[in-house]
Structures are given as structure tokens and as C-alpha cells.
């Protein structure tokens, strides 16, 4: 069944989420063409326009994906270790790892930065020596700089926790957010740097762009 009017929500999204001064002409074109097309076609056109026109939204979406992946990975790893290590001798209990701090740190970096970075780059088809190198470099920089950052942040954060405790009671949510930010910061930095280096390379090397034909 063909509708006489495009979906209202899609129209609203087109009007409000597409940046630039082409919206009016595009809206008219889509309306004109809609009479011989389907609502699904209209939706595809609107999503494509939003992704193609709105760089802000594109950056926002990429940011969301990066953070979501990092949080899912770090929390997933924590869950796996917590629930799959039934005995001290189990592989996931980590007892096989030598107890020296540098070794633990290296194992942590490997499982919390190197492996997820490789997986992310492979999934997004951005795996290369350059993206891996830049991503790992940025991740390591954050790991090295994090203790200093935490040291400077500790006092104001404790004041903030006192304030929350006095006004709203238990500040556990804020503490968890703080821990989550600490745990995921190196991985987020690694993925962002790798993605940024890929984008810069593309802009520099390849003017060929055929985006968003669906």
C-alpha cells in the first residue's frame, strides 16, 4: 500500500537532524519522488541524508560506538573473570601469571588494550600497521599518564563525593562512573587515535568518495 504522505517521524528527522542549507531542496525532492516509492525508501533516504550531511552526528555516532565497545569489553572481561574462575588453579583465575607487577601490568595492557584494539580495528576493517601503532601509542600514553591524572583529581573528586554524600546519600554511582572512566580510558584513547589516523590518511591519500549509495 502506498501512503500519500511520508512517515511523519522521518520528515521531522530530516528537518531537524540534517545540517546545512540543502534541507529544503532535499525535502522537496524526497516528497516529489515519494509518490512512486515506498515508506521504506523514504526512511533509507532520510537516514542516508542524516549520516551524509551531519558531520556532528557522524562524530557523535562514532564516539558512541567507541565508548560502547570499550565499556562492553572492559565490563565483559571483568564479568568473565569473576564468573568463570571457579578454582584458584583455573586459567582465568590468573594464578599462572608471575606475581611481579610489570608482568601483571603487561598482561592487563594485553587483554584490556591490545586485544580489543585489534578486534575493533579488524571489525571496522581499519587494521594496519599505522593504525595499530598509533592506537597502542595513545593507549600507553594514557596508561602512563593516568596515575598522575588520578593524583591531581583525587582531592577535588573526594570533595565532590562528600558533597554528594551530604546531599543525596550513597555516592556509589559516581564512584562506579569514576572507575569505569579509569578502566576504559586507555582503550578509548587507543581506538580514537587509530580511527583518527585512518580518517586523516583517507583524507590525504584518497579523494575518491562514493559515500552512502544504498
Amino acid at each position, binding site marked *: 500500500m502506498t501512503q500519500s504522505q511520508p512517515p511523519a517521524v522521518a520528515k521531522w528527522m530530516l528537518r531537524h537532524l540534517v545540517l546545512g542549507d540543502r534541507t529544503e531542496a532535499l525535502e522537496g525532492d524526497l516528497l*516529489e519522488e515519494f509518490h512512486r516509492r515506498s515508506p521504506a525508501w523514504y526512511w533509507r533516504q532520510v537516514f542516508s541524508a542524516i549520516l551524509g*550531511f551531519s558531520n556532528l552526528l557522524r562524530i557523535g555516532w562514532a564516539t558512541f560506538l567507541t565508548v560502547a565497545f570499550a565499556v562492553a569489553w572492559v565490563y565483559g572481561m571483568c564479568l568473565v573473570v569473576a564468573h568463570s574462575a571457579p578454582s584458584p588453579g583455573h586459567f582465568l583465575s590468573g594464578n599462572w601469571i608471575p606475581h611481579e607487577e610489570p608482568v601483571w601490568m603487561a598482561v592487563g595492557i594485553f587483554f584490556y588494550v591490545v586485544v580489543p584494539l585489534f578486534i575493533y580495528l579488524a571489525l571496522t576493517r581499519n587494521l594496519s600497521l599505522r593504525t595499530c601503532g598509533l592506537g597502542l601509542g595513545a593507549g600507553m600514553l594514557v596508561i602512563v599518564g593516568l596515575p598522575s591524572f588520578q593524583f591531581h583529581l583525587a582531592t577535588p573528586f573526594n570533595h565532590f563525593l562528600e558533597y554528594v554524600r551530604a546531599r543525596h546519600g550513597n555516592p556509589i554511582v559516581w564512584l562506579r562512573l569514576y572507575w569505569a572512566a579509569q578502566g576504559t580510558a586507555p582503550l578509548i584513547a587507543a581506538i580514537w587515535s587509530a580511527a583518527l589516523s585512518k580518517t586523516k590518511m583517507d583524507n590525504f591519500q584518497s579523494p*575518491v568518495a*562514493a559515500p*552512502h549509495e544504498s
Partner: protein
Amino acid sequence: MAPHAYLGEFELIVLLALLRAGENAYGVPIARVIEESTRREVAIGSVYAALERLEQKGLVASHLGEPTPERGGRAKRYFRVTAAGLRQVRTAQKALVSLWRGLPQLEGAKA
């Protein structure tokens, strides 16, 4: 020709479609020409994005038409290829033809 005014594949397709669509070309006819030649659904938004890039490079010029009722009172944006755009298409054509010519892998192959 500006040294950095490279043409991407899709930009070249849009320029050629614009030339084919002739005068009074706007988003819909340009997208139709592309769909007919590539046999793929094309996002009109992508066509506009490419046209804007081409306009910034000075290869395309545009003007707004009058609003019409069948378009919900929205005006059409008409496009035309500029002289620089035409030169750029010719340059791309020469480069591509010279690259295509004499390739044994493509001899006798179906398009």
C-alpha cells in the same frame, strides 16, 4: 585547473549524470540518471552532498527555483556544470581512457 580539485568516483558519476540530465537538473532527475546507469538505488542526500563538494570546488553552480505545490511548497535547487567542471571531466576521461587502453585483462570481458 586547480591542482587539488581531484574528482572522486562518485563525484565524477554525479558530474556526468548532471551533464546527461541537461538543463534544469535538480536532485531527482540527477539521481534517476545515476540509478539507471548504475542500476543501484542512490540516496538523493548523497547526490546533494557530492554536488555541494563540487560546488565548493567551483565545478558546479546552483540556484534556487520557485516553490511548487507538488513538492510541499519546497523550492528546487537547479545545478549546472561550470566551464571548470567540464574541463575536469575531460581531464578525468583522458586519464581513465589511457589507463583502460591496452589492458589484456579487460580484453573481451563483459562490462
